[in-house]
């Protein structure tokens, strides 16, 4: 992560350091982006007068007008497909798809065009668009409202996929995503929308980089999105049990920051990957496989993963049985061939 002042940005809106929720940080990022770049438009279902079902676009239409933030007909392929057309014509659309499962109707547009149009035209047309999706569970949502579909996007060449775990990253990564010349799928962990933290609007984030969220020497936890606070909590408990746990916030699901992650795991010799999505053929499997391959000689034990089960997401009353929790993480850490004598 590079920390730098962006001169453009300060022209339109004075940088500030404030404590705010992730939702507020995202809202602020959208507002600042709209303000600083006339090509940015925000649209989707219910993002106008309502301000989005999670209120991330709250006040944007009132402040910037229907021209810059507007509701569309209820059709996700339509939303993404018209965003592709706008990007072809020089705009920077930022679209909201209401929940992971409701992004699926747009999947063809995402895979066959968003991801490929730049390549198809040999760079003649770029796709500087952002697809925002409130993602993951942990909010007691009914079926179709709690899925984690990062694997679908991360597997698709041409797409950049990021997910913040702090309000600061929410702000900085969303600004970076909107400024990126390439298409970004921006996954917002629903569970963290109301978590608070300090946000300095002058900090910029570099997409493609992981962040060391906690230093530690015995084992490395690799996590992203809502699994980062879980990893930090597990690290805290493990610390009380005498283990020094490092936590890496992967942040950029694709491309992947091998440099940071490999160095981290080599330094501890042990690793657990944590993610809420079903584990099979997932981003967690990718991270596990990469770490295994790149750190093989340094590993004291197999890399483990703690993920959601390979079953459909649980109904609200059972979701605590589905979601990875501190105990599962600690159990996984326990299997890492600790020499109890040492």
């Amino acid at each position: 992560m590079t920390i730098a002042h962006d001169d453009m940005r300060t022209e339109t809106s004075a940088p500030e350091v404030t404590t705010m929720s992730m939702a507020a940080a995202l809202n602020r990022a959208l507002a600042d982006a709209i303000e600083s770049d006339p090509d940015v438009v925000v649209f989707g279902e219910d993002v106008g007068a309502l301000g989005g079902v999670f209120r991330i676009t709250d006040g944007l239409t009132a402040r910037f007008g229907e021209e810059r933030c507007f509701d569309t007909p209820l059709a996700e392929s339509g939303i993404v497909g018209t965003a592709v057309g706008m990007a072809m014509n020089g705009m920077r659309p930022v679209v909201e798809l209401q929940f992971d499962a409701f992004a699926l109707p747009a999947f063809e547009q995402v895979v066959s065009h968003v991801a490929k149009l730049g390549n198809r035209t040999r760079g003649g047309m770029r796709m500087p668009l952002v697809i925002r999706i409130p993602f993951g569970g942990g909010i007691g949502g009914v079926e179709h409202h709690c899925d984690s579909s990062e694997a679908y996007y991360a597997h698709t060449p041409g797409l950049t996929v990021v997910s913040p775990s702090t309000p600061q990253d929410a702000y900085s990564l969303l600004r970076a995503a909107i400024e990126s010349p390439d298409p970004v799928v921006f996954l917002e962990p629903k569970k963290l929308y109301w978590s608070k933290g300090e946000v300095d609007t002058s900090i910029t984030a570099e997409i493609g980089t992981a962040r060391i969220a906690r230093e530690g020497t015995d084992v490395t936890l690799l996590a992203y999105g809502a699994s980062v606070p879980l990893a930090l909590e597990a690290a805290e408990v493990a610390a009380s049990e005498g283990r020094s746990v490092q936590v890496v916030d992967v942040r950029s699901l694709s491309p992947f920051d091998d440099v940071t992650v490999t160095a981290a795991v080599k330094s501890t010799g042990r690793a657990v990957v944590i993610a809420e999505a079903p584990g099979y053929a997932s981003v967690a499997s990718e991270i596990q496989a990469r770490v295994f391959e790149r750190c093989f000689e340094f590993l004291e034990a197999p890399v483990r993963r703690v993920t959601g089960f390979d079953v459909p997401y649980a109904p609200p009353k059972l979701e605590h049985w589905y979601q990875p929790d501190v105990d599962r993480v600690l159990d996984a850490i326990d299997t890492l061939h600790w020499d109890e004598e040492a």
Partner: protein
Amino acid sequence: MQHTDMLPRDTAVRLIDEHGAAVADEQYALPDAETLLRAYRGLVEGRRINDQAGALVRQGRLAVYPSSHGQEACQVGASMVLGDSDWLFPTYRDSVAVIARGVEPADAMVLLKGDWHSGYDVRAHRVAPQATPLATQLLHAVGFAQAAKHRGEDTVVLALCGDGATSEGDFHEAMNFAAVFHVPVVFFVQNNEFAISVPLSRQTAAPSLAHKAIGYGMPGQRVDGNDVAAVLAVLGEAVSRARDGGGPSLVEAHTYRMQAHTNADDDTRYRERAEVQEWVARDPLLRLRTHLTEAGALDAEVEERFAAGAEEIATAMRAALNTDADLDPEDLFRFVTETRSPQLEEQWQLLRGEIERSNLAEAGSASTGGQR
């Protein structure tokens, strides 16, 4: 059929006006008093179910409830026009129609309570699971009807969706498949003017949603969705036509979502109270009560009987929903596939271990809450 016969009327079919007066119509007859009385009872029960569910949400017993308050004429009409061998394909907003079809209210609420993704015996009631991903169920309805036709069964399928859902690609594909394969499906759109916060004007520029029908080669009709008599007549005709091999059709009901989208929504952000207020006068119960009372078919005693019946349903709902269901976390694995794979068995085993630990912990001491 002449092409233009597929076009809907310029105004919605109405058989009873807002003041309860019968409106003569040359195409559709007013249902008989007995039918209307049955419908009225349905409306009373439907309204009570909506209100009770709203209360249960406020008490934290339901996770969420998309109310059909104001749309009960559509809900009851959709249930009444179907025969025993017919099928209903409802959405999240159609709980009242589902219950009117015989499903226990508590079973209909399993999804909204958060216990499971659907809670009733779909085959026993011939009601598909309530669909959440918009318009997707319309295709299921078409395929279901195709299968029935394939086997020569006497099944008409009634597929429900909202105005917003008509914008989805699946709506288009469902209408088209139904028309091309000429299957016995009736598409019933409850146009309640909103898709969460988005008004109809942002959903379509068409003269009406029913005008879409001709583009598929099927008839479209518009009906006053707050007039249960008209809903019964128009839907009833569409169902009969489908049953008689006349193919699919589209019926658009003009109604209004009187409450917020769900309890999680705040409709003051996007619509004026005055607009909502205007629709109070068009309430489907009000006008039918006036009509039946004036026709001498409804008196205080019957009213009381209906109210008591509705209260009974509400009481049962409360009782059922105030009881915590005995949920088995192993259900997460039990139904994923019928064939059991070692891969899932392995994960299931992990969960079993955690359940055991949790049971032990609970049995041991109330103070150690964790599973570890």
